[in-house]
């Protein structure tokens, strides 16, 4: 018995996951779940949307390849993470967005959002949103120019703004729309129409995105279904989208019940703009969202509330992007205050201590160094002095 060769024992810290689940596997599944959304996006907007998806994803992959080659970032091209960034970024841009600007957005997303932090697993912000925020600041007009969905001839003809020459201003879409007997307003997103014109779109139309001539992004219903698949397979944590959507709806409902004239109904809030895709695919980025269960809820509520506040009280019609970026930035703080109580430690003698430990050469483990805990020793001394 003892003479038998013992197999190599690998010592690992918890959690001891039974099924191996690699980063690549998770990322690949996210890409699979995004494929129906992309297909519907192309069905809505035609070849302009298809070209945008290809160019943005290509830009992300090229930039990733460059930084991997120079050795400035960790990860592999085959881990699918740059592909996800590219697809999400393209889905969050207007379908007629000039392709060269899409290329800039993809390159900036990887370079500024990921490579400078050290690659996959180190990014502070969701890279897709960093890219979007950059082009939002650089090209504010182009990113606000949407085109209506289900235009006739969308599979044979590009939106003229898509094919702008690099560095050149895109063609005026309103002229092109006018030739098709559509007023310029058809190109405004439902949120912009509500904010600047006071026109409220029907929530069911928004949810399915099936009615024509509406400038909405990818269909919320489809994204919800794809998100449900990911959540069911535990590739994303349901707490984050649930708390974002829940808190946004709750706040919108409170405001709507106070003044229905001034504020739109909560369903419009929920299904317009990028709230659904942001909540399900962008805020749940595993690197830039908290890992503690309570932290996830807190993070989601912060994003949901910020989204509604930005939409209602700022000069911008859409606020999901900035809300998620602020949520990403506050993620370390949220994790710090939402550390779970270890089993056996009650609520009453829980210690206030930072989540991280200092780099002390004498440091062994928190449980050993704190054998007589600081608070208890302190209180005992005090007792002794009193006695």
């Amino acid at each position, binding site marked *: 018995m003892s003479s038998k060769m013992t197999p190599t024992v690998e010592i690992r810290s918890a959690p001891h996951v039974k099924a191996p689940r690699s980063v690549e596997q998770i990322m690949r599944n996210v890409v699979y779940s995004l494929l129906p959304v992309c297909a519907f996006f192309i069905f809505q907007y035609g070849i302009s949307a298809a070209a945008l998806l290809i160019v943005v994803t290509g830009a992300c992959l090229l930039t990733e390849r460059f930084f991997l080659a*120079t050795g400035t970032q960790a990860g592999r091209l085959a881990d699918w993470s740059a592909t996800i960034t590219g697809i999400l970024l393209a889905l969050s841009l207007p379908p007629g967005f000039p392709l060269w600007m899409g290329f800039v957005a993809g390159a900036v997303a990887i370079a500024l959002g990921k490579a400078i932090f050290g690659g996959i697993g180190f990014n502070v912000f969701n890279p897709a949103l960093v890219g979007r925020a*950059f082009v939002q*600041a*650089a*090209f504010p007009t182009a990113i606000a120019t949407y085109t209506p969905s289900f235009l006739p001839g969308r599979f044979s003809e590009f939106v003229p703004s898509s094919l*702008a020459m690099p*560095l*050149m*201003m895109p063609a005026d879409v309103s002229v092109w729309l006018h030739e098709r007997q559509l007023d310029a307003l058809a190109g405004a997103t439902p949120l912009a129409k509500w904010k600047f014109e006071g026109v409220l779109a029907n929530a069911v139309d928004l949810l399915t995105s099936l009615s024509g001539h509406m400038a909405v992004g990818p269909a919320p219903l489809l994204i919800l279904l794809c998100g449900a698949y990911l959540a069911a397979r535990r590739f994303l944590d349901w707490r984050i989208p649930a708390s974002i959507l829940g808190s946004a709806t709750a706040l919108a409902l409170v405001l709507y019940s106070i003044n229905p004239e001034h504020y739109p109904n909560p369903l419009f809030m929920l299904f317009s703009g990028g709230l659904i895709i942001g909540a399900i695919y962008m805020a749940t980025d595993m690197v830039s969202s908290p890992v503690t269960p309570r932290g996830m809820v807190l993070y989601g509520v912060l994003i949901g509330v910020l989204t509604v506040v930005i939409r209602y009280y700022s000069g911008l019609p859409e606020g999901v992007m900035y809300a998620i970026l602020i949520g990403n930035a506050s993620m370390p703080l949220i994790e710090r205050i939402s550390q779970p109580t270890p089993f056996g430690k009650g609520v009453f003698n829980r210690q206030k201590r930072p989540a991280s430990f200092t780099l002390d050469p004498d440091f062994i483990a928190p449980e050993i160094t704190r054998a007589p805990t600081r608070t208890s020793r302190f209180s005992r001394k005090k007792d002794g002095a009193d006695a």
Partner: protein
Amino acid sequence: MMNTNVPSTWEEFTEGLWERNPIFVMVLGMCPTMAVTVSAINSISMGLATTFVLAASCWLVSLLRHAIPKEVRIASYIGIIATFVTVTDYAIQALSLSLYEALGAYIQLIVANCLVLGRAEAHAAKVSPWPATVNATGMGLGFTLGLTMIGGVREILGNGTFFGLSLFGEHFQPWVVMVLPPGGFFVMGGWLLVFALWRARKARLAAASAEGVQHGA
């Protein structure tokens, strides 16, 4: 204690120009770097104004270095620098009011540019006037070069022009963010990245050739 390795005039001059460039190597004087580099012409004017202040005050500091006891040296240096900033201020007002308005408060803020006081304290107070002035001029021109490299990129992307010359015709799409303050940080970071990649490549090549020599021998 005697410094036996006295640098030549050329070495003094080129130290700040490239080897220890104030912006890209020492990362000094970031306030004007971010604020006025929206166009190449602004950058070059700001850089030349700083160069004048730097060279003139380093010359005077070096000239008076034996007369100034070290207890009161900071007060004296700041006085000297403030003098030349005032002179520059008047000179620019006399030359062009529109340039003066474009540069705004950043002309007066040269007095607080850490590059100027830093060079006066670290270099000019220890050497004779000629090398002090030459070194300060080199540093100032290095600063100008850095500012113009940032300002040039920001102007090309943010406005489609370079020194006011239109590069891409009237259909150019300006990158609004480049003329806003964040653009300064983006371009600065971009240049630092380029230099870091270049240095890494040079080090790799040097290591490879050293290895090759060893193996060959």
